[in-house]
């Protein structure tokens, strides 16, 4: 239930930020797990969003905040092999695997191009990820959650639409949540990596 309130607060914060010289963007995210993340869930994540705000320091550079939620999940029927010191085994059955990632980051961006034209940007997000890894198998559920320090470089396009300071926002972001805690199953190597495609709107208090 807490997440519901966080989303509501983020929406309110985004709306009230119009009084300042801000660029606010809200996007739908398509996620693509890579690396170790894809070993647990390999399917693309079609459910996710980002709400972010950028405060411009000058015409080209900004600092801001980025919040999001990405869900990766899949049905998996591959047997799980387990190894102990003197015994080993196999567990088979339908599994529902999921990873929920909640990035909360500060950002810096550099923008190219002229005001009121289509602008490209590159940026870097730095902050934390709260990541919940979940395995449902049979009537059992195993959760594993950790906070991770992380980086997310990104690049994209802001395409103005009309004269009302609204734009289409297209971006790509690589998320790297560094090793933290232990993974489900006990592995000490618990980092997450995934790509995001961000599609949505950007709103500016004035064209930057």
């Amino acid at each position, binding site marked *: 239930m807490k997440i519901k309130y966080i989303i*509501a607060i983020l929406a309110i914060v985004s709306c009230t930020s119009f009084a300042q010289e801000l660029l606010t963007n*809200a996007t739908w995210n398509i996620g693509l797990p890579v690396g170790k993340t894809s070993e647990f869930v390999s399917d693309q994540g079609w459910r996710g969003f980002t709400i972010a705000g950028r405060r411009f320091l000058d015409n080209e550079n900004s600092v801001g905040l980025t919040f999001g939620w990405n869900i990766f999940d899949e049905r998996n029927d591959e047997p799980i092999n387990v190894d102990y010191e003197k015994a*080993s085994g196999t567990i088979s059955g339908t599994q529902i695997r999921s990873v929920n990632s909640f990035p909360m980051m500060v950002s810096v961006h550099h923008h190219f191009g002229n005001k009121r034209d289509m602008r490209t940007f590159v940026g870097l997000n730095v902050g934390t990820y709260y990541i919940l890894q979940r395995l*449902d198998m*049979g009537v059992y559920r195993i959760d594993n959650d950790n906070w991770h320090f992380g980086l997310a470089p990104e690049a994209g396009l802001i395409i103005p639409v009309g004269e009302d300071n609204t734009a289409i926002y297209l971006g790509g972001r690589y998320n790297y949540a560094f090793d933290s805690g232990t993974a489900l199953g006990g592995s000490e190597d618990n980092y997450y990596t995934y790509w995001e495609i961000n599609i949505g709107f950007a709103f500016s208090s004035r064209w930057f």
Partner: protein
Amino acid sequence: MRKNKQIKLFLIILFSAVTSMMLTSCYPDYGLTVEDFDIVATFKDDAANFQTYKTYFMPDSIKRLADGAVGSSNTQYDAQILQEIKNQMQAYGYTSAAEQIADVKLFVGITTSTTYAYYPGYWYGYYGWYYPWYGYGGGYTYAYSSGSLFLTMFDPDKFNATSQILGAVWSGTLNGVLDDTQANKLTRTLTGIDKMFNQSPYLKLVP
């Protein structure tokens, strides 16, 4: 200017609302059936050499490990279950023998239990995941009965008289939901037994 702000505000709220709905209500149920809740787990003692075992002994009854709520005293299908295990052992090259001379002994046990739980609502979870459920208000109280079939292979020569620890060299466990028709429960049980052996190819004796 005021109109522009209203449009932006509307778009942000619309986006947030649509995204929230998408995230909360569109968790797929994956079309799960009661069979999808069956788990088969097998373990072996890595030090055991199964090729040295040729004969086995198995009692002609299934031990009820705990008298739970559902079906634990129902012995209707015990004969079919034991026969399926015998068929699999035979297919893997083992021969039935008297208890005193058998290389390994098979122990078959069943346990059942009923679980009651409360699911707080639609938010954050797999709606309809647990089977079966019934509910009221914003959340659901659901109950399910689950059962397990344990099949354990002991090597009498590994029995530790000092610690009284039996020498288990292999075990197979089938766990599943019991809220199903009797016929389907039997089918699922027999399928589970087959799976125990299929995922333990090292049990198969090489002629």
